[in-house]
């Protein structure tokens, strides 16, 4: 890892790209805010999720489980399982970002899909830090503002079912899943997981079918080998 300073051209190009990602991603927050209040959470709970949880898929998962009548604790477990991928991003980024102490503790909150994507390919620590922080902070600010806007709007329109917002939850999950379905292995896992979830819906408490589907991920991980074609 080198610590060569950034030249101005590289610097402004990293900032421009990162802000672009920040704006595009932050805007999704409107969708989250609207879906969350439609699922029965209050505006305050919705905003607290975006501020403290701040990892989109986990937030959608928690409100999705609650919307389907599941126990909040099942929702929290599902959200945590989805949050484990941020741990793996951190492992990749730790040597590149090379932060310690309170800087690392603060940076951790904005360790998400987008900040990882905009920093993991950089060749120097200053470039990686700039991409990580510009993306992470801009997504954080805009995601939280957009969440509030979506939650307030969603809360003031009455029964969310009239506007089809209950259908928006499934669409949001599908949009998050979509890029991963390019791999055949992932498509098999997705179909098996959906089958396990629907098969267990009639017989276990709400919220548990989604957790049961996590077993498919475990099984698939054990059964596949490295180097297999995707």
């Amino acid at each position, binding site marked *: 890892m080198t610590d060569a300073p950034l030249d101005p051209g590289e610097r402004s190009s990293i900032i421009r790209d990162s802000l672009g990602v920040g704006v595009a991603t932050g805007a*999704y927050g409107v*969708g989250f805010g609207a*879906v969350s209040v439609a699922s*029965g959470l209050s505006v305050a*709970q919705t905003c607290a*999720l975006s501020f*403290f*949880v701040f*990892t989109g898929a*986990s937030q959608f998962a*928690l409100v999705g489980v609650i*919307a*389907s009548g599941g*126990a*909040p604790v099942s929702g*929290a477990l599902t959200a945590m*399982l*989805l*949050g484990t*991928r*941020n*741990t*793996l991003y*951190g*492992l990749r*980024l*730790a040597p590149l970002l090379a*932060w310690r102490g309170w800087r*690392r503790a603060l940076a951790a*909150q904005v*360790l998400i899909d987008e900040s990882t994507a905009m920093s993991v390919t950089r060749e120097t620590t200053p470039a990686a830090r700039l991409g990580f922080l510009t993306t992470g902070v801009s997504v954080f600010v805009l995601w939280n503002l957009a969440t509030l806007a979506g939650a307030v709007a969603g809360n003031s329109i009455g029964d969310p079912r009239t*506007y*089809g*917002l209950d*259908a*928006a*939850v*499934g*669409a*949001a*999950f*599908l*949009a*998050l*899943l*979509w890029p991963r379905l390019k791999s055949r292995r992932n498509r098999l*896992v*997705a179909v098996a*997981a*959906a*089958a396990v*979830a*629907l098969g267990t*819906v*009639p017989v276990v408490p709400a919220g548990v079918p*989604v957790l*049961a*589907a*996590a077993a498919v*991920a475990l099984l698939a991980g054990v059964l596949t080998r490295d180097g297999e074609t995707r």
Partner: protein
Amino acid sequence: MTWVAVGITGVACYLLKLAGLSVPPRVLERPLVERIADFIPVALLAALIAVQVFSHGHSLAIDARAVGLAVAVVLLVLRAPFLVVVFGAALVAALVRLV
């Protein structure tokens, strides 16, 4: 209960992020762990879609939400942006309920 879940999720998701930046890589960087971690979002998101769209309480159901999901598929194939997919699905589901 919902506030408790919000609190637990917030603390846990933060610690998961911090752990990645703090734990020595050799502890977690194993092929099996990485494969399972790659599959977990796929399995959970697929299960969430299935339950969210095709169940009602403890029974399975096909209604306006399924039409919304089909619209989402079409929009994703057409490479529509996230918000268009989400609100497009909602709009069509709402229209289906009207008729």
